[in-house]
């Protein structure tokens, strides 16, 4: 039965110390490491995502963010003409003009055009995707 901690009597501090003294080395200390098995189990359960790189651990040089009108990330398969079309079709008051992005002017129009493509490909709502993209871009620029 799940219950709130506030309904429990507090364990005496001495109780913690006694339990600590009684902790065993644990079976994990003796278990052999088999990386192939570990990876196989991960794949079986779907734990195959690549974790983000630790801050400061980036090895590859970071390319500068493109200026407005200087082309697009070809890895998204977006032609430059398509970028220009999307940028030109922005509605007045779009997020690219809003206060949320003015803090970093290096985030270009192209990035937001890329977000459009990502939204189409992933189905993630615009606001959520844009915030995440801005966060990632800002982190990249800071690094």
């Amino acid at each position, binding site marked *: 039965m799940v219950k709130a901690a506030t309904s429990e009597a507090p364990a005496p501090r001495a109780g913690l110390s006694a339990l600590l003294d009684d902790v065993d080395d*644990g079976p994990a200390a003796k278990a052999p490491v088999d990386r192939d098995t570990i990876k196989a*189990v991960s794949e079986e359960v779907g734990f195959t995502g690549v*974790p983000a790189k630790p801050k400061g651990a980036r090895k590859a040089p970071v390319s500068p963010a493109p200026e407005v009108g200087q082309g697009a990330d070809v890895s998204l398969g977006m032609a430059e003409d398509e970028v220009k079309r999307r940028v030109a079709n922005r509605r007045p008051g779009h997020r690219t003009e809003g206060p949320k992005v003015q803090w970093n002017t290096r985030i270009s129009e192209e990035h937001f055009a890329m977000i459009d493509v990502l939204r189409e490909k992933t189905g993630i709502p615009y606001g959520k995707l844009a915030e995440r993209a801005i966060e990632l871009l800002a982190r990249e620029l800071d690094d």
Partner: protein
Amino acid sequence: MAVISMASPKGGVGKTTSALVLAGELAQAGSTVTLIDADPNEPLTMWEQIRGPREGITIRNRIDEENIIDEIEAARAESKMVIVDLEGTAGVLVTYAITRSDLVLVPLQGSQLDAVQATRAVRLIRQNEKALERDIPYALVFTRTSAAIQGRTFKHVAAELETARVDICPTQLIEREAFRALFSLGGTLHDLRDADVSNLDMAKENAEQFAFDVLQRLPKKTKSRARKAGRAA
């Protein structure tokens, strides 16, 4: 010597807070504790920078798939208790940590989304048990729950998990300002003053009970030796 991992493929469920609260209580009880900061955002490293190193607590960071097992083993050699704070993703790093753990805690808030992700973590633990042919104790830990009321959603989620025979830690970590303040003021609950946060005593009581429940789930010397003696016979 004992390794406890905080695992959930979902972010924002309270893994880091649970790890830090537990570390604080264990250090206060006289144990040496190594916190392995395996979240790429390194929140525990940032926590340490606020007040500087805390006596009894060591932080290890810059963790990746290549070094996590070595880091856990090194931490096991230097401290009595090792707590691994994992990133909220479903990656291989999580599996590596689970294989080296004596106890896995899966924090979750009382929502259906959190519960679904928690059950994914439990499934991974159970698959590891089969692959490694050993028990890996685990428990779900409800975090950021209300001290005053339990909503219908929470009750429903808790009931579903109990029906599924998922182990649940009897102590919940209540939503407390003191727990949040650890990341702005640094230190542990025992470094805070009453003037810093409200209801500090209740937060300490909650944390102590949580640590008590966790320690009770770890393998004990006596039971281990008894098992060994049984096998020898």
